């Protein structure tokens, strides 16, 4: 053995180098293992990675302007938007030719809608011009500058041309600027006016409320998980059913139940008035605001906190507490110094789970949040299904994803992700 090692690489029995031989033997194993997980891999690729990737691409995709208005984009390239002067005749001629073609292909409204996100009013400009452009002979009917300005005074506005120029590249950061309450002004990116800012507020509120929900889940869930882990089996099973009961009830039913409980003419207010704690004309406002959102979502997400904590606590043998007490620790010291540190992985796992679920929650804030308790996800849903501004929705989603990853990274730095246990 040793003299072989001294003279060169180890050889297998048939004379091939041992490393190569081992690699060949392991490759077959690896291939077989890969085959086994191939369906799952494929499913994840098709159902998760591709859609998410496509959605992220939506947030920067901007091909529509250069595809629909190719001549205009080229002609506008040399125009200086900050000069304060309108573009020259060639630009107008190119626009007329593009519009004529677009109107025949019926794509002029789409580019109008796209540019309307950035500069409200452009949609109607394109719709009106498109109707007229069908009958044009772009090569013969020039010059176009005055004709177009006469058709719609928007063509005489440098801001419109600036918007077209800014959004002519195939990729854009516009959606992200929008999602961060910014826009491209004459001097580059700038904040929107105070009264137009909304997304940063929503992001902040989403994070703040999600943290509050996570915290209240920890406070409420910890004792329950402790009981589950320490009661005799029969009682623990009963309690477990109670914990899981919400899972067996529709989310909408549970949320609606909170509406019944919390509204001003609802059960809680009635009881408080009846006891005399609250005057009849000063009933508490507990729903359609942040309070309602926190209450209802804590209730809905509580099992996701209890279950990981329970499974971790179950692995902590009761002898540790006994040992601590035999060493002279009071009940509290034994709990705080011995039991609690060992249950932290469960708190970590539950918190990450609840926080990530909360940050993307949609139905409950929409139903009980009113205007003051809505989350960023409600806004994303609005852009997906109502305003059809998918690019902005994608940008908001991407920012949310980055925020979650950042928090995950911070958690790893502070607590350590190895410390997370689900059981």
């Amino acid at each position, binding site marked *: 053995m040793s003299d072989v090692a001294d003279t060169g690489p180890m050889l297998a029995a048939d004379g091939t180098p041992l490393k190569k031989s081992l690699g060949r033997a392991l490759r077959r194993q690896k291939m077989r293992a890969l085959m086994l997980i191939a369906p799952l891999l494929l499913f994840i690729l098709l159902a998760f990675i591709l859609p998410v990737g496509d959605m992220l691409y939506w947030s920067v995709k901007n091909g529509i302007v250069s595809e629909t208005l190719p001549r205009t984009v080229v002609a506008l390239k040399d125009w200086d938007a900050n000069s304060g002067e309108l573009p020259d005749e060639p630009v107008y001629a190119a626009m007329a030719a593009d519009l004529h073609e677009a109107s025949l292909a019926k794509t002029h409204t789409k580019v109008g809608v796209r540019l309307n996100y950035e500069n409200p009013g452009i949609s109607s400009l394109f719709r009106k011009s498109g109707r007229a452009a069908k009958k044009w002979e772009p090569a013969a009917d020039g010059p176009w500058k005055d004709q177009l300005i006469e058709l719609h005074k928007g063509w005489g506005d440098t801001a419109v041309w600036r918007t077209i120029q800014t959004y002519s590249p195939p990729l854009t950061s516009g959606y992200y600027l929008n999602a961060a309450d910014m826009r491209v002004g004459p001097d580059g990116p700038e904040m929107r006016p105070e009264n137009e800012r909304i997304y940063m507020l929503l992001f902040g509120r989403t994070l703040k409320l999600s943290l509050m929900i996570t915290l209240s889940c920890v406070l409420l869930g910890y004792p329950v998980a402790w009981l589950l882990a320490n009661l005799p089996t029969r009682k623990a099973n009963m309690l477990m059913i109670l914990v899981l009961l919400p899972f067996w009830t529709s989310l909408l039913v549970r949320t609606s139940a909170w509406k019944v409980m919390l509204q001003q003419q609802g059960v809680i207010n009635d009881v408080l008035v009846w006891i005399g704690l609250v005057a009849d004309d000063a009933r508490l406002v507990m729903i359609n605001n942040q309070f309602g959102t926190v209450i209802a979502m804590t209730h809905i997400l509580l099992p996701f906190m209890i279950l990981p904590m329970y499974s971790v606590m179950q692995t902590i043998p009761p002898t540790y507490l006994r040992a601590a007490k035999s060493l*002279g620790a009071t009940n509290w010291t034994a709990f705080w110094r011995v039991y609690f540190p060992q249950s932290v992985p469960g708190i970590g796992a539950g918190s990450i789970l609840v926080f990530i679920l909360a940050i993307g929650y949609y139905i409950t804030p929409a139903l009980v949040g009113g205007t003051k308790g809505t989350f960023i996800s409600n806004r994303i849903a609005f852009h997906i299904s109502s305003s059809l501004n998918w690019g902005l929705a994608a940008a908001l989603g991407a920012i949310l994803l980055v925020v979650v990853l950042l928090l995950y990274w911070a958690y790893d730095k502070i607590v350590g992700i190895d410390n997370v246990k689900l059981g």
Partner: protein
Amino acid sequence: MFGPARRRFGLGSVAKLRASPEIREFFRDYYRTCCNAGPYKVYFTSRQRRKSADISGSVPLADSGNSDAFVAFERVQKSYDGEILVVKDLNLSMPKGEFLTMLGPSGSGKTTCLMMLAGFETATHGDILLDGVSINNIPPHKRGIGMVFQNYALFPHMTIAENLSFPLEVRKMGKSLREEKIKRALDMVEMGDFGGRRPAQLSGGQQQRVALARALVFEPELVLMDEPLGALDKQLREKMQFEITHLAHQLGITTVYVTHDQTEALTMSDRVAVFNDGRIQQLDPPDTLYEKPQNSFVAQFIGENNTLDGVVTEIKGDTCIVRLDGGEMLDATPVNVTKVGERTRVSIRPERVEINKERLQDGAHTLKAEVLEFIYMGDIFRTRLRVAGNDEFVIKTRNAPDQEKLVPGTMIDIGWLPEDCRALDAT
């Protein structure tokens, strides 16, 4: 023991006494010096010492009725469900410095007794006294009893040093004193270099040593051990048995040790309490326990044992004659048979059976035996015989040059001294 002293210092309970480190230190040093000579001497020396102290007047101590008992169980009963007593009327008292083992099969109540002493279970009836004071209502953390658990129960999120520091921190000890005591305790179990490691990085034997050091670091006067060596392999276990006994005697600590391993009990203890069915069956030093078992259970449980059933036909002082169910007669020592005609089960240790007739006294009864199996075990020979219809009758003979190697199928005569054959209860 501390009774009058407490009165003198105006302190009301053990807990309060513990709260004052100077007084504690004083008493500990005082008793350490008394207790360093081993368990039996402890008993006497401490009493003598107490007398001399009495005379000198420095520590006035009255001699109350049971003042030698450091730990005492008085008519203790325990039931978990209100229907079955797992501990039935337990009475036990141990002097300071004794190493007492509670031995018994699982479910015999020994661990329950230990847990009651530690304070994790409450006695349904009766008193448990520590230093003459009832500790029934003192919570575990105020009892100041060190404990080593079966699975060590080292806190996994703390290093070894932090584990040892824990009992000192909860006693609000200063940092330098803590470090000194931790170092001394770790050196004591030869683990001085491991302070920075975590329990998971240690082997079973090392964890065991740390658990021991942690139970001793706050210098308790009483240490409880609940099958501490159960998880170790045989060789390590034997090594640790020796070390634990050695440490306990060296420090003069009173130790209650629970095990179901009879070898462990015999090799380690000053006295062994054999538990069965919630009662102490016999409480004696190991040699007495092995050689003079008081009933069939103890005889069967401790060591290897041959039994033959029969009826007592004659009792003469401290010998009796038993007629076996097959008609053979044999001599025995009556232990818990009282009258002629009573059924009995006689018990003989395999190594006390004599196959050489010349070594028996005249007139001794012998039995015919057929050799069934001969097993060579190195240091001894183990031979299985059929005696009076019993196929499982085993004898052990020493591997000496002149020792006869019995051949299966041959008939031999066997006999024994009456004092080695004990007529016990028939159950």
